[in-house]
């Protein structure tokens, strides 16, 4: 392609560029070892509340500090590479996707917080190891929702690109 592209060449170049952006966004996934590590940290902290008599706030703060450390590391070049990511940060995410994910996270936090307050007494009396089981259930739900999240991102990206390519 030299000079000014023809309409066919322009359309083809736009399709190619959008396709590659989509592929680059789609290939951003947490490495399996990172997922396993994060899951184990969460489970260990939850188990502290089930096994220890008076764990206090320490396990919670350790979990928060480790998650925060993970987020910071994943945002830096060297940290992300050490964790197994091949690129840092995500750009060009469709605004609708960001809005949907934020709304879903806020809804899940609000509902689970409300449900937890209502049932905490019952759970601690009748369900053994309920902290660990709760975190395990959360991990299972998050794993099951991961492909849904990727599909949603791809679909919204494709829709945005169709609009942009017009």
């Amino acid at each position: 392609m030299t000079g000014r592209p023809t309409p066919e060449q322009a359309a083809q170049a736009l399709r190619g560029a959008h396709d590659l952006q989509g592929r680059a966004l789609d290939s951003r996934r947490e490495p399996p070892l990172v997922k396993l590590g994060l899951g184990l940290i969460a489970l260990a902290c939850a188990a502290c509340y089930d096994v220890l008599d008076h764990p206090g706030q320490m396990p919670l703060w350790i979990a928060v500090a480790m998650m925060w450390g993970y987020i910071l590391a994943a945002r830096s070049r060297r940290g992300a590479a050490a964790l197994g990511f091949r690129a840092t940060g995500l750009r060009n995410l469709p605004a609708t996707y960001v809005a949907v994910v934020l709304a879903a996270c806020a809804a899940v936090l609000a509902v689970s917080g409300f449900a937890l307050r209502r049932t905490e007494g019952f759970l601690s009396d009748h369900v053994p190891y309920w902290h660990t089981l709760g975190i395990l259930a959360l991990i299972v739900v998050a794993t099951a929702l991961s492909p849904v999240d990727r599909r949603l991102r791809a679909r919204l990206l494709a829709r945005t690109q169709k609009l942009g390519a017009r």
Partner: protein
Amino acid sequence: MPVDPALVDPTRLSIVSVLSSAQWAEFAFVRDTVGLSDSALSKQVSKLEDRGYVEVKRGHVGKRPRTWLNLSDAGRHALEGHVRALQNIVAASRRAGEQHTGEAPPP
């Protein structure tokens, strides 16, 4: 807005498109996503770096050497302008096609 001469080349457009999706991307990630050899990608990245469109950082993670690429602000603006120019070309062609089919056929 005219098309960017540096991005008319499909390979360079592919590279900046991939880089536009991340903050820093590893050289190997871009190579695999675009489907180029190391030397071909290196050559194109040098051209983009000369124009100020791409930043290159080299370093080590453990003992392994790594190269990271980032689309600079100039590169981002160039890509946006180039995409807009391509969209204008496609839109102008569509309009011309619609006008052509909308004209009454000669008697």
